[in-house]
């Protein structure tokens, strides 16, 4: 059993309690236009190319065993149909302009890696967070992974967009100490517009999950001009009223992912902004008034 993982982030302190290791799975059913990890969206490996570091020296072109790279104007073009992801170009590049996103891991390999930081989990009340991309699309792997972690008595968190088969969620809930459950937009049309999918399943799954699990942190990405307004916050409050949810994380948008889009050669929707601090504080108060514990940031 293997899964594509694009990062194993140690000393992760914003994805659940304490010092954690966050395992980022590759592949996501949503295509949020504000996504901070665009390299997580596609399931397979990808080449990241940093044009700003490239001197067009051609070393990578000579190194590539498949003749997949060529110079086009002032940039390099990679023919992805030819690329076999052996990393010849990555090793050859003297400017560190090329990277491969995504690596196949077996369960043993990923367990070995996350167990390295066990002492920190113990002393900080931390553990392992499964994130992505979307962990749910690696259902079998994720379930086995969580089981192994619980066998080792390690605190587990799953960061999910909630878009998946509830049977999977139900199965992994048993081994998940904490769900970090994203809710992006309550209005379905808007949701489809900005994420590419309907939110019906997401909301439905959240409702069902809250019946069988009592440790759910709701995570709200807040993007100025998209969902950072009081009406939307009121909608969210109405939606989750009565659900067994007591913690909310407000995640203000930031544009540090801009360079990642460039490296992937994909357009960056640049007209989004971080909501003003006063707004965030106001929303925090709105949730707090209803009895929720709120944190700005992860």
């Amino acid at each position, binding site marked *: 059993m293997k899964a594509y993982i694009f990062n194993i982030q*140690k000393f*992760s302190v914003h994805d659940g309690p304490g010092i954690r290791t966050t395992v980022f799975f590759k592949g996501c059913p949503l295509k949020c236009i504000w996504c901070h990890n665009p390299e997580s969206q596609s399931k397979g490996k990808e080449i990241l190319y940093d044009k700003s570091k490239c001197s067009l020296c051609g070393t990578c072109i000579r190194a590539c065993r498949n003749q997949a790279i060529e110079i086009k104007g002032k940039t390099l073009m990679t023919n992805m149909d030819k690329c076999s992801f052996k990393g010849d170009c990555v090793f050859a590049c003297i400017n560190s302009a090329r990277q491969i996103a995504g690596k196949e891991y077996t369960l043993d390999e990923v367990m070995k890696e996350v167990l390295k930081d066990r002492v*920190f989990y113990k*002393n900080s009340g931390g553990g392992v967070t499964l994130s992505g991309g979307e962990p749910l699309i690696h259902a079998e792997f994720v379930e086995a992974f969580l089981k192994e972690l619980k066998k080792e008595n390690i605190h587990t968190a799953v960061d999910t967009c909630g878009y998946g088969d509830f049977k999977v969620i139900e199965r992994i809930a048993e081994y998940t100490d904490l769900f970090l459950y994203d809710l992006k937009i309550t209005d379905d049309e808007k949701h489809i517009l900005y994420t590419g999918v309907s939110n019906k399943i997401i909301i439905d799954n959240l409702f069902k999950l809250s019946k069988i699990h009592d440790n759910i942190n709701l995570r709200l990405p807040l993007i100025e001009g998209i969902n950072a307004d009081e009406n939307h916050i009121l909608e969210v409050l109405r939606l989750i009223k009565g659900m067994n949810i007591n913690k909310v994380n407000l995640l203000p948008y930031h544009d540090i992912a801009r360079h990642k889009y460039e490296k992937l050669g994909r357009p960056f929707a640049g007209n989004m902004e971080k909501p003003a601090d006063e707004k965030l504080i106001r929303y925090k108060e709105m949730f707090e008034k209803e009895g929720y514990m709120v944190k700005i940031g992860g």
Partner: protein
Amino acid sequence: MRGYTERTKKLREISTTTQPSISLERALLETEFYEKYYGTVETPVLRALNFKNYMEKRKLYIGEGELIVGEKSEGPQVAPTFPELCCHTIEDMTVMNDRKYISFKVKEEDKKLQAEKIIPYWEKRSMRHKILESMTQEWKDCYAAGMFTEFMEQRAPGHTVADGKIYQKGFLDFKREIEEEIEKLDFLNDPDAYDKKAQLEGMAISCDAIIIYGKRYAQYARELASKETNPKRKEELLWIAGNCDVVPAHKPETFAQALQMYWFVHIGITTELNTWDSFSPGRLDQYIYPFYKKEKEEGTIDYDKARELLECLWIKFNNQPAPPKVGVTLKESGTYTDFANINTGGINPWTGENGVNEISYMILDVMDEMKLLQPSSNVQISVKTPHEFLKRAVEISRKGWGQPAFYNTEELIQELLNAGKSLEDARFGGASGCVETGCHGREAYILTGYLNVPKVLELTLNNGFDRYTGKQIGIKTGNPEDFKSYEDLFHAFVKQLNYIIDVKIRGNNVIEKLFAKHMPSTFMSVLTDGCKESGRDYNAGGAKYNTRYIQIVGIATITDCLSAIKYNIFDNKKFTMGDLLKALESNFEGYAHIRNLVLNHTPKYGNDDDYADNIMLDIFTRVRDLIRGRKTVCGGTYQIDMLPTTCHVYFGSVMGASPNGRLAGKPLADGISPEKGADVKGPTAVIKSCAKMDHSSTGGTLLNQKFTPSSIGGQEGIENVASLIRSYFELGGHHIQFNVIDRQTLLDAQKHPEEYKDLIVRVAGYSDHFNNLEKALQDEIIERTEQAFN
């Protein structure tokens, strides 16, 4: 202005704004004394009488508003010189006066006195002269090539710490005990009885010297009081006189007298000789808490009063710049800091229980408020340490200027036990200087110099030839292109290493003898267990325990270098040894592809990657086993430390490019920290890698971690750093310290030093003003990997 009270605000201001300068008072008194008495008495008596002469005749200083009195020289930031150890040339003095960093102002008339009185007498008599005259050509070649440094070249052995005895006894008591030892001498059967008598007499005279100094202060304070018109100050001066009537002759009775007692002792130790890493009160909170408790119960002291007195003591430490250094000694320790490293917290040394008390918290408050370079304050964290105390310490450390550093109590004790000390003595142990471990008040643990391990590989790759000096300084271990395997190379490296260590230790043996013979330290001997009983000096193996350290520099650099060779040349055949040698020779110019592979695609230390970390372990074990346990000429034992002070910059400057991609002349990695930019997996991976070496078989290791301020914000940030520390210590780590400052600020500070006069950063086992650091070191600190919390 910083300071808990108006008084300490003013005193701190003077301490931090006065330009360091040199006074020849001590040198002149000493020269006059030597001209008269040299040859008339045995050496220990001569040295003791010289010390007494200084204490009798030197100028006294009581600053406006001071409550604790005593300075090493004529006032704050004035440094005495020690021509018997290092006789500065006029050129040295000009350099000290003119240099941009770590300057000391020298008066023109003093240069004249130096030329007319000091140099003619001491030029051929100083220890520095004796040492350099006695070294072999091999030693001189290695020294010139920067294979190692020599601590005793300009300064005396020292590097020890007070224990609790000075709070329980006065110097009249110590003198009585010494006289009893003289009474017991057996001239019939003991062939050394005569030497012992001279030593013990010297020690008794040293007691007189410090008692006289205290009495003079009592008298001087009364004199000032008689002229004082402000009634409040008059009363204070009489109070000072009252304290100096009691200490140091008698044991202290009050909290203030306990602090004054320590301070007199500190001045005594650091003016008898210019001991390396000055001196320190060690476990201060443990020793002075009983005084505080008693007085608090009696209602004669409260938090505010005690806090003010502690701040007065802190300022006293800061008033004393390290003795002026020149040449290589300045390069290995380029700072005003004199490394009086105070240990707070840990365990109660008498009971083994948690030692954190009210004074421990008060010391943290003082450290936080004073924000001074000296003393170098640290905390000891034991498994028994309350979480609150750790959190408070982290909270201060997070402010970004490097204090307090964190030490692992259980590991410190284990180190001492492994080195053969009793549990009882080990509990009185702690860190001093930068990170070095010893049994306070019971051990002479003397640092002898830094060892440039990465340069040993450079020699190996050049068959023993040094390109920097253009000489064959190592042994011939073969043409590296003929090595058939990584093991062949490693074997040659170890042979070369063994040779260099032998050269160093041969030199050490001579220097140790020279100090034992010519520079007994009779006052230090009074304060160190074992000297009185053995009738032998601190500098002649008289202490209960005697240890000499060689400090290992650049473990990360050498690990990454060997990893680069093993991984790319032998395991994966990416290029040949010939290619690498050419790349190194050309400083990687024209060899960008090789540099890319070794820099970016090779396993490196600091990432919890066993490939690199196992290489580190191989090197660590070899270096340690080649040094640890060797006997010194006066009956001590060798140990290793893993710390750099500022020597990693100097050692890098004498080297060409190295196989890990480091360019010629660039600094080596500091302490046991990973190479700059090599640790890409975050602080937990760094800690895991660092913890793989057996810290408890060393005398201390140093780990620097740099964070951006935003990455450790909030209450959670404190908890996370606290958990990091607890985890590192659970894994057996010795020490960790933090720089919390962002790169942008440092870059800006480099450009606009005038706007950052207050910016303090952690360097090695100490903090320093960013502006006081030479450019290469500033760059090095900027390049240290910034760990971010994600």
